[in-house]
Structures are given as structure tokens and as C-alpha cells.
């Protein structure tokens, strides 16, 4: 009796699995197809693209479009390629991410472990920052950057991104530290550790997952930002997203689709790498936050 029914169970198992896997494979293809198209076409000479078949592999492989996108393509008025703008982005993203993460961690620390009157109100107001649409703050921000003498500079962009990200980073760290046992802080106080010693020696070493989450979140958001980049940059502080747009929209000459594809991949590469390197921690950190927060 039991043998056939087991057999049945196994068969339905296989059947269900087949359905699940085909669905998954289908979705994977759906998401991977654009990347594939970009990749193969960025490796073809322009003529081949013009002939029509977007999906075929290159007949003649070439890295010329990549070289062009990186260092010689016409961006706006100058033929510099994306390279200087890529560097601009790096110089903007690295400090902005680091600063907003550190400040968010400090905020979370104070809001959970050094409570003061009205702390929840302060936190509520900071949360509100997460819901303010970018467009609303554009003009006030421009004014403040002007007053500070940071208009059109990379430090100005860093400041804007840092301030705008602070709401999110504070939220992340506050929720994470809320679950952190207060008795550990008290024990450290009795041991004589100062405010910053407790932060650095007790809290930070246990913050790995939430730091990864915050860094990924901030990195992708700031790297991919277009609005602030286009609003607050000048010729020598343009970030890569804006430069990519300028590359694609350059009106002179023919549309070099292969160069555009290569440029787009170049612009997306850092976020891709960040996800691949730390994606595992990202998921783990989100889960940890979900369970504890």
C-alpha cells in the first residue's frame, strides 16, 4: 500500500518542482535578457547593430565601443569619455556613504541608548525626512549650497546626499540598536568606558549586518541619483548618471548605440559589484533587522 502512494508523492513532488523551476528560469531570462542585449551589442561594431538582429552574438568582436565610452566619446561639448565623471561619482559617493552611515549609527546609538526628553519626537521628524520628495527640497537646497559656497561642487553634492540619506540610515540603525541589550551599555559604563568608547568597542563590532545594509542602500541610491546630480553640479563635478545622459543625448553625429550600451554598463558596474560582493550580507542583515526590529 505504502509503496505506490510514496511513488505518487515523489511524482507530484517532481511535477511541482518542474513547474517552480520553469517559472524561475522564465523570470531569470526575463530579467537577464536586457543585460544580455546590452552586453552583446556593446561588443559589436555599429554596422552590425544597424543590420538588425539585436539578439545575435557579434560576428566581429570588438572592445572599441568600451574604450570609446570610457575615454574618448563626446560628452556634452568635450570628447572625454565617461572616465572623469566616473571618478567624480566615486569621489562623491565614498564620503557621502561613509558620513551618512557613521552619523546614522551615532543617531541610532543616541536615540536608543542615551534617551532624552523628546527623543521620539526627534526620531519621528528624522523619519519624516524619508518621505519628503526630492523635488520639494531642490530650491531650498540650492539656496543653502549657495550660502555655504558649495554650489556646483563635489562637497556640495556630498552634503546634500548625506543629509538626505540621514533619515534612512538613522532609521536602520535605530531599529537595529533598539534590540541591542541596554545592560551591555550599562556594564560598559560601570567598566568606565566613555560615550565613544562604548560606541566603538561594544556597539560597532556587533553592527556588521546593519552596516552592510546601510552601505548598500546608500551606495546604490547616491550612485544612481540623477536629480541632485543634474541640479547641483557644474562642469567639473558632474556625476556619471548625468554624464551618461549627456553621452546618449549628444546631438552631434550618428547615434553610436554600441558605445551607449557600453557606457550604460560602465555606469551600472559599481552597484552591480557591490551587490554581488555583499548581497548575501544584505539579505542576512534585512532578515536580522526584521526579526529583531
Amino acid at each position, binding site marked *: 500500500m505504502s509503496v505506490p502512494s510514496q511513488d505518487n508523492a515523489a511524482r507530484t513532488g517532481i511535477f511541482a518542482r518542474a513547474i517552480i523551476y520553469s517559472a524561475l528560469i522564465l523570470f531569470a531570462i526575463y530579467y537577464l535578457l536586457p543585460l544580455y542585449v546590452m552586453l552583446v551589442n556593446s561588443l559589436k561594431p555599429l554596422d552590425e547593430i544597424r543590420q538588425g538582429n539585436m539578439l545575435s552574438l557579434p560576428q566581429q568582436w570588438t572592445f572599441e565601443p568600451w574604450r570609446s565610452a570610457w575615454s574618448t566619446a563626446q560628452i556634452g561639448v568635450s570628447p572625454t569619455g565617461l572616465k572623469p565623471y566616473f571618478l567624480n561619482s566615486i569621489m562623491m559617493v565614498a564620503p557621502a556613504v561613509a558620513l551618512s552611515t557613521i552619523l546614522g549609527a551615532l543617531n541610532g546609538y543616541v536615540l536608543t541608548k542615551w534617551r532624552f526628553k523628546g527623543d521620539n519626537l526627534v526620531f519621528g521628524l528624522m523619519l519624516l525626512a524619508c518621505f519628503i520628495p526630492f523635488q520639494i527640497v531642490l530650491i531650498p537646497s540650492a539656496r543653502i549650497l549657495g550660502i555655504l559656497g558649495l554650489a556646483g561642487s563635489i562637497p556640495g553634492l556630498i552634503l546634500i546626499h548625506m543629509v538626505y540619506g540621514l533619515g534612512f540610515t538613522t532609521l536602520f540603525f535605530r531599529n537595529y540598536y533598539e534590540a541591542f541589550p541596554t545592560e551591555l551599555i550599562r*556594564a560598559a*559604563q*560601570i*567598566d568606565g568606558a566613555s560615550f565613544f*568608547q562604548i560606541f566603538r*568597542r*561594544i556597539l560597532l563590532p*556587533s553592527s556588521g549586518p546593519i552596516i552592510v545594509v546601510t552601505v548598500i542602500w546608500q551606495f546604490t541610491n547616491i550612485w544612481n541619483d540623477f536629480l541632485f546630480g543634474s541640479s547641483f553640479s557644474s562642469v567639473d563635478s558632474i556625476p556619471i548618471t548625468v554624464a551618461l545622459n549627456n553621452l546618449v543625448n549628444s546631438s552631434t553625429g550618428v547615434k553610436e548605440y554600441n558605445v551607449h550600451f557600453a557606457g550604460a554598463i560602465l555606469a551600472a558596474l559599481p552597484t552591480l559589484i557591490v551587490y554581488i560582493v555583499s548581497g548575501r550580507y544584505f539579505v542576512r542583515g534585512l532578515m536580522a533587522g526584521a526579526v529583531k526590529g
Partner: protein
Amino acid sequence: MSFLQINELHKSFGATHILKGINLEIEEGGFLVLVGPSGCGKSTLLNTIAGLEPITSGEIRINGNQVNDLHPSKRDIAMVFQSYALYPNMTVGQNIAFGMEIRGVPKAERDKAIADVANLLQIGHLLDRKPSQLSGGQRQRVAMGRALVRDPQVFLFDEPLSNLDAKLRIDMRTEIKRLHQRMKTTIVYVTHDQIEAMTLATKIAVLKDGLLQQFGTPAEIYNDPVNMFVADFMGSPAMNLVPATIVTEGNKLAVKLDRGERQPILLPLSGGPAGLSAYNGKKVIFGIRPEALTDPDGADRNASQLATADCHIEVVEPAGSDTFAVTALGGKHVVARLRADANVKPGTTTPLAFNLTKAVFFDPESQNRIS
């Protein structure tokens, strides 16, 4: 002179008044145990002594110095938290040494201190492990080690044994007692465990709703409770508290215990508290501990006031070393503690000896002791 002194201590969290005027003192090398029902403010009191919570009013003195506004690290106290509070990112050795490291003690000296404490607590083989790789009892010992390495003026322990299993608890209790006898450091200790309180304390403070009910030696608390709360709270099984009437028999007072349709029991008193005569003809609460109510053969022969009465036994509970018998007096179940081999059967009537020297009386209104 007392070493740790707490005067009129008040503590409020916002509008909630938690500690309502606590007065305590303990001499140098004393062992003060705080007991009381959950939420009565024991941990809060400990935290105020440690300086982790600011006080609302009052005074805390350690070794003669007022420490009210001193930072926890400046009070020269060491604390063991109920949850151990071991730093998860540090090894056992680093946990124990953290305080010394912060205070800038040289490495060689730190290592020596760690080795000494590890030796004392037998955790030498665990020094390189992280707290997550330890068992409950091992974590407990590390938490103790972190405090012991300091040699402070006062140790504060907040229910340090509450997370351990029964066996380990008893071992650790003995361990703490031995440590205290050797180090002679003043200790304030919070516990829910009666036996821990009785065996460890030189002084016990019983708290209820932020008010100090009684403060005294374990024997005082046990034998001379000032009110019904303390009488009921300390001791296991608890003291029998039976409604009774004071009557006169001949020219002496006697306690009359009603038994429903049965004949009331009359226990003649010789001596007894002086205040009792004012209650002649009135209701009182008669308190007698189970061990003062026993079979006549097992009764204390030196007791000056022993009265025997026939009681109807309802339930018999053999507990190995003793047998507990339950009878009904004054509408309450009353537990008597008999010898293990006492020949009693449920449903029968057997004589029980009341050791009235150990009996106490309470006013049913105020619940205070009649003295």
C-alpha cells in the same frame, strides 16, 4: 559605622513613583539581600546604587562619601547583571579585562589578574572563547569573573543565579558564599529565591511596592516578621495565617480557632506578646510556621509553651525528609510539618503539637504584628 548607607531614597520614572523613601545600611563586609515580589523596585534600587539611574531625592553613601552624582565608573562598584551582559564581540579574557583596559592597567598586570580570577572560577580553559560558545553556568561564572577581577568597594548582584538549573544554582550559591567569606567585600544581592536569601544574607531587606517592609537579619525576618506580608513572603512552605479569636480562659489568654461544625480548638497562652491583652474577645490573625506545628513526638521538647490538639487530617504529602499534613483551621488550609515516618492517614484525626513560643499574632485590619 555603616559602609553602604541609603537615606530616604526616592525614585520616580516620570510620574510613576517607584521607590518611596528607602532607608538601608550595611556594615563593611556585610551581605545585604533584597527580596520582594516582581516589580517592587529591587532592580531599580540596585541601579540607583550603581549610578545607572539618577535618583529623585535622598542620599546614597559609600564608605562615608556621598555618591549621588558620581558616574557609575567612579563609584568603585562592580555589578553582575541578571542577563550577564557579556560583550558578545569579545573573548572571555577580553570581557574580564575590559574594565582594566579602559582604566589603562598595563598588559602584564591585566594578564595576571585574568589568570587569578580564571583560576578562582575555574574558567581558565575558556578564556579564548566567545560568550556565545559558553553554557549558561559558564557565562554566569564569566560575569562573576568580570566583577571579581575589580576588587571594588561594593558588589551588586541582580538575580545572578536566576537563569541556572536547580543543581547549578545550589553549587553557585555555595561558591558565592565561599567567595564572600574569603574576600570580605560588601555585597548587595537581589534574589527571588527564599533559600538563597536565607543562606547568603547577613541582612535581608523585604520590599513591597517601593516601600521597605522590614530590614533585619535572616533570623529576625523569619522569626519576627513585622507584618503579614513579610510573614507570608519569607519561608517555604509559607507561614500558616489563620483567623482566630482571643479569649480568656481562667485568668489566662487563649487562642480560639474555629473549625466549622467541629469543636473549636482552644490553645492556652502563657506569656505571649504584651499587646495581645488589648485584643481580648477580638479577632486576630494567628501565624504559625509549619515546623512549629508537628506531631507530638517530633515537637521541640525545649519549647516552653506547647499545646496539643486533635486535628482532622485532610491531605498527607510525604516529601522525603518530612511529611506535610494539611488540616483545616479557621476556614484555612493549614500545613503541619511532621517527621518523615509519622503515622498519619488522610481522613483520620490525630493530635498535633502547637509550639506557641514560635507563634505570632497580627492585627487583621492593619496587618501589623501585635507585640
